[in-house]
């Protein structure tokens, strides 16, 4: 296991690259989700205002 983590001495390089790539993937999913939530909230507010007036 530690041999696998060590990556024949290149562990720091390999794992940081993988971490950054996966971080980028997760970040985009999170941002897209947040955008959807905000769009729903905004649309609700907009419709509520339309109905009031």
């Amino acid at each position, binding site marked *: 296991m530690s041999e*696998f983590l060590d*990556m*024949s*001495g*290149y562990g720091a*390089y*390999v794992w*940081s*690259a*993988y971490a*950054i*790539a*996966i971080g*980028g*993937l997760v*970040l*985009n*999913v999170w*941002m*897209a*989700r947040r*955008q*959807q939530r*905000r*769009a*729903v909230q*905004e*649309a*609700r507010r*907009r*419709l509520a205002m*339309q109905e009031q007036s």
Partner: protein
Amino acid sequence: MNWVWFHRFGSPPYFYRFAGRWAPWFLGIAVLLLLVGLYGGLVAAPVDYFQSDAYRIIYVHVPSAYLSLMTYTWMAIAAAVGLIWRIKIAHAVAASCAPAGATFTAVSLITGMIWGQPTWGTYWAWDPRIVSQLFVLFFFLGYIGLRGAIEDRDRADRASAVLAIVGVVNVPIVHFSVDWWNSLHQAPTLLRSDGPSMPMSMAWPLLVMIAAYTFYFLAIMLMRARAEVMRRERGGAWLREVLAREAT
């Protein structure tokens, strides 16, 4: 007549439903492929004779670079469609491409730097491909900046579409100019753009990763475009219906 199916995508309710239905599937497929690709890249693929285990960075570096260029192409096509035929959904799609494009351009640059240190002995080289990629990053940032700076949505759509098209015309010029510029300097001895051709045992995880990133891009693009479509809608029965169903 075969066109008709395509025109349905111009209708916000249809697009919203379509995106909502398919995005989770695409994301699920992407995650599955990603797990297979990661296993293949980190465990199953044999150790490279020249680069030892450092070469394994290729399995995240190349798909990221590929994704950034694919996003760029999609964005420009969508922007052109939106500008020429005035299809709002196309603008929504173009807008949805930029953030993912910017992140993955940055990821490909950073992973490239990390890979460069053990193999070339330097984090940064003024290689044409690296400089073009940096240009693409600036371009994405400029696109996002322009879009954010113009308040009127319709104007922001069309101004950024013009920028996207101008950028696409410019990318090959940048690439060739840097290529030519670099070729006048000493030939890069450390950079071999074509290494030894890859055996299948090393290539398959890469192909799986590229497939995973493609599905991932489709999922993100649909998710974002869906939110954009909702944001642009000023009312309408379908929006009420959708909002009633949507959990908070």
